[in-house]
């Protein structure tokens, strides 16, 4: 009955105790248990609080239903086992406490004590609030220990986790991204019990590199970097991914706060989609805590807070960026306005107070910054009464913008009132629907206007000059089209300007001269050389007028050919005078020949008579007279030839003749007049030539007599002939005074004579070589000279041979 009594109630544990065979234990049959045990056990089994009894010196364990949860899956094996066996993993710390109670008979209370329980297959982090009270036996000794216990694991851990979450709240007030992460991670670093390690990964949406490690705690950074996590899975699902085998993500064993290594982790996506950032928080799971609902909730909360910190800092950054951009753009506008070559000024209010003006504007106004803040008319008093003030006021009152071009303004600048020109705009400044001022943007165009005026003036001057000119002027472009002729030309021709443009001018040229005028012009033009041409035009009065047209090629600064500028002069009068002169010379020389002929006849008759009479002396004198007459007649012949050349009347009677024979004859004739010089012949050309024999003989004679004349000290002349390509070439070499290099080519010019101190020594009109060269040229030949001053000259000519 007694037995029934203390086991009667007490739930499952009472039942279990009853059914246990205690005889094999140190307690012995339950019927033999002392009263003290029985009464304590009775209290225990009837209590709804967790109570255990450790009985005897080996602390045999008895407990009630409420306590049975504490040993976890070790229950019911724990019933009746010694304390040291049940709590082998923690007995070391408990043993002393138990013994102390047993010996001293005093109660012990231990609050929130960490007692890692190996239950449910792993060592779990557990906290307990427990008392150890002595159970006094009838003999007054302590026979066992009465243990009441409350597990506070949940409470402790939740408090701890709450503290972490609470700390994370401070992130909500942090603005910087880096700062937020730093503080957040520091907080997480202190939550090692729940979060053995934390890795924060972030990436910008537009970041092609992808997600990268932003921060790590509880794991050496190199280890963290070598880890790989299923971010995509987490980010796509939006849910945390549970890594149950950490070694799949990180090769190295991860040491935790606890003695055991970390084996699990959670990859939590950060919900920060409102930013352009995405990220994941990877946290290690405590090896001593099952990843239960609470744990997950905690980790999620941590992740949410970190996410908030990132969003906030991102938004803050964005705000900062925007603020910075606003400041930058303001600065830019300010510096733009200041550096702008365009002048700007802002007027405020109806008094037109100058609130802003950039340096370009101040420069234009020739004013200092002291005008800022002043009213328009105080700042720029000279503007009073000028049209621009009314325009400005009008813009202010009507709100209609105004644009001005080439507008003139009188400004006090550099100590005097100057007229300046501007392109400008007045734009109303509208704030809150009200016109508060006017912005003026202006560019000074004074230089442009002035140069335009100067251009107009110079054009007017140019036209004035060219119109007044007795000379016709013309301009041609780079392809030879006439682009301008002056009034004088228009007056001459009696046709309007447009009739002369391009090649129209040729219509004014007399028919006979059109081809020559056109050919001359384009020959010179294509060679870009000085142009000179003589032709006749039909004058408006019906007369034919001779004009000479000259022009020079024009080149711009880049040395590009731009065309011609030229002039034409009416030379009809000169032509007539020249004609008269040539006619006179022609008639005069012609008339001179007749008396010369008579003189020669008389002299020769007389000479002959004296010779017959044997008066040699008188005969010789008459011979000399005859020679002088010959000289005179040669001079007359030269004059006549020149007039023929000028008037284009030189005629050629071309025949085929033996060139060599002609040379022989001329040499013989010249040799007859010269006793000092021996003319040596090297005549290698044997053949006939088609040409004017007499004229060619005239050239050879001229070259030979010149050679004799200009080598008074020498006694030898060499005449040579030969064939060169398709022409016959004749050279006369002397060993006389020679010609200097610079005068070499001038010897063929009309009237050119060897100058200097020796001039008087060599008489002549300076026509011989000119006539010779004209003859050779007219026969399509060439004439030239090689000479060394002091050594002698070699004059040569060549004539084409008929093929």
């Amino acid at each position, binding site marked *: 009955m007694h037995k029934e009594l203390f086991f009667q109630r007490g739930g499952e544990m009472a039942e279990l105790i009853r059914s246990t065979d205690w005889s094999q234990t140190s307690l012995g049959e339950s019927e033999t248990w002392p009263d003290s045990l029985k009464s304590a056990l009775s209290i225990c089994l009837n209590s709804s609080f967790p109570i255990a009894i450790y009985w005897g010196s080996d602390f045999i364990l008895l407990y009630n239903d409420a306590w049975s949860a504490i040993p976890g899956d070790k229950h019911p094996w724990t019933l009746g086992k010694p304390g040291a066996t049940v709590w082998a993993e923690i007995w070391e710390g408990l043993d002393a406490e138990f013994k102390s109670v047993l010996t001293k008979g005093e109660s012990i209370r231990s609050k929130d004590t960490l007692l890692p329980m190996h239950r449910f297959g792993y060592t779990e982090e557990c906290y307990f609030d427990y008392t150890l009270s002595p159970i006094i036996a009838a003999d007054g000794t302590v026979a066992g220990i009465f243990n009441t216990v409350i597990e506070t694991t949940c409470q402790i851990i939740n408090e701890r986790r709450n503290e972490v979450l609470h700390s994370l709240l401070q992130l909500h007030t942090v603005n910087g991204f880096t700062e937020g992460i730093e503080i957040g991670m520091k907080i997480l670093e202190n939550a090692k019990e729940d979060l053995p390690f934390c890795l924060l990964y972030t990436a910008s949406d537009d970041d092609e590199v992808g997600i990268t490690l932003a921060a790590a705690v509880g794991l050496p950074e190199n280890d963290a970097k070598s880890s790989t996590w299923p971010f995509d899975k987490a980010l796509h699902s939006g849910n945390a991914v549970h890594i149950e085998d950490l070694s799949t993500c990180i090769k190295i064993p991860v040491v935790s706060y606890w003695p055991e290594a970390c084996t699990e982790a959670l990859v939590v996506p950060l919900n920060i989609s409102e930013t352009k950032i995405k990220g994941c928080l990877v946290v290690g799971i405590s090896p001593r805590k099952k990843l239960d609902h609470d744990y997950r909730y905690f980790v999620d909360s941590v992740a949410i807070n970190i996410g908030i910190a990132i969003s906030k800092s991102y938004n803050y950054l964005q705000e900062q960026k925007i603020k910075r951009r606003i400041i930058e753009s303001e600065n830019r506008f300010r510096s733009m306005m200041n550096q702008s070559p365009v002048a700007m000024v802002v007027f405020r209010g109806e008094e037109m107070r100058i609130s802003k003006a950039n340096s370009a504007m101040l420069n234009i106004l020739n004013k200092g910054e002291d005008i800022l803040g002043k009213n328009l008319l105080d700042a720029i008093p000279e503007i009073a009464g000028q049209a621009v003030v009314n325009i400005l006021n009008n813009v202010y009152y009507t709100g209609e913008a105004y644009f001005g071009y080439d507008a003139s303004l009188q400004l006090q600048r550099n100590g005097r009132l100057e007229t300046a020109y501007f392109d400008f705009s007045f734009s109303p400044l509208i704030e809150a629907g009200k016109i508060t001022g006017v912005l003026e943007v202006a560019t000074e165009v004074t230089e442009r206007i002035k140069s335009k005026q100067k251009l107009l003036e110079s054009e007017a001057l140019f036209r004035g000059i060219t119109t007044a000119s007795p000379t016709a002027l013309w301009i041609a472009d780079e392809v030879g089209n006439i682009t301008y002729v002056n009034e004088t030309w228009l007056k001459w021709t009696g046709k309007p300007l447009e009739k002369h443009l391009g090649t129209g001018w040729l219509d004014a040229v007399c028919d006979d001269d059109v081809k020559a005028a056109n050919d001359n012009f384009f020959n010179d033009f294509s060679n870009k050389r000085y142009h000179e041409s003589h032709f006749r035009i039909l004058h408006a009065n019906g007369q034919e007028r001779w004009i000479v047209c000259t022009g020079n090629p024009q080149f711009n600064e880049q040395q590009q050919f731009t065309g011609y500028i030229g002039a034409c002069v009416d030379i009809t009068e000169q032509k007539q005078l020249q004609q008269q002169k040539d006619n006179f010379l022609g008639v005069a020389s012609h*008339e001179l020949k*007749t008396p*010369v*002929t008579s003189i*020669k*006849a*008389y002299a*020769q008759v007389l000479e002959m*008579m004296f010779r017959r009479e044997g008066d040699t002396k008188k005969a010789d004198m008459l011979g000399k007279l005859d020679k002088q007459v010959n000289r005179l007649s040669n001079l007359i012949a030269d004059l006549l030839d020149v007039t023929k050349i000028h008037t284009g*009347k030189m005629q050629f009677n071309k025949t085929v003749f033996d060139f060599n024979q002609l040379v022989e004859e001329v040499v013989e004739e010249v040799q007859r007049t010269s006793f000092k010089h021996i003319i040596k012949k090297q005549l290698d050309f044997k053949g006939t030539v088609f040409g004017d024999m007499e004229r060619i003989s005239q050239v050879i004679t001229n070259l030979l007599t010149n050679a004799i004349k200009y080598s008074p000290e020498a006694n030898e002349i060499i005449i040579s002939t030969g064939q060169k390509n398709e022409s016959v070439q004749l050279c006369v070499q002397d060993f006389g005074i020679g010609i200097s290099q610079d005068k070499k080519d001038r010897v063929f010019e009309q009237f050119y004579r060897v100058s200097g101190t020796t001039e008087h020594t060599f008489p002549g009109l300076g026509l011989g070589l000119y006539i010779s060269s004209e003859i050779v040229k007219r026969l399509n030949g060439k004439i030239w000279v090689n000479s060394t001053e002091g050594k002698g000259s070699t004059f040569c000519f060549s004539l084409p041979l008929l093929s």
Partner: protein
Amino acid sequence: MKTAPKKILIADDDAGIVDSISMMLEVMGYDVDYTYDGAKVVDALKNHPDLILLDIWMSGQDGREICKKIKSNIQTKNIPILMISASRDIKQSALDAGADDFMEKPFEMNTLMTKVDQLTH
């Protein structure tokens, strides 16, 4: 037997030329007739000259026209004509007009004598 001297007609409007050339020709043994007037050249042919020295330009008369007239007349066409001019450019046209030879002023007396001798034989 000594042959009769050849008769030379000098037609030139310049008295100096007529006088000097006549003197030369007479010295050389020729009979000389002369006229200063171009219009009278044909009349002078009545004396049957053996040679005419004809100036190209005789006070308004073109010697080449006179030459053509003489050469176109059957009775006078065999009289040789030596045309004389101060201009060598006339030569071709003179020969074209029928002149037997041409001489440019001034000339050497030797040249004249050679030509006269040739033309009168």
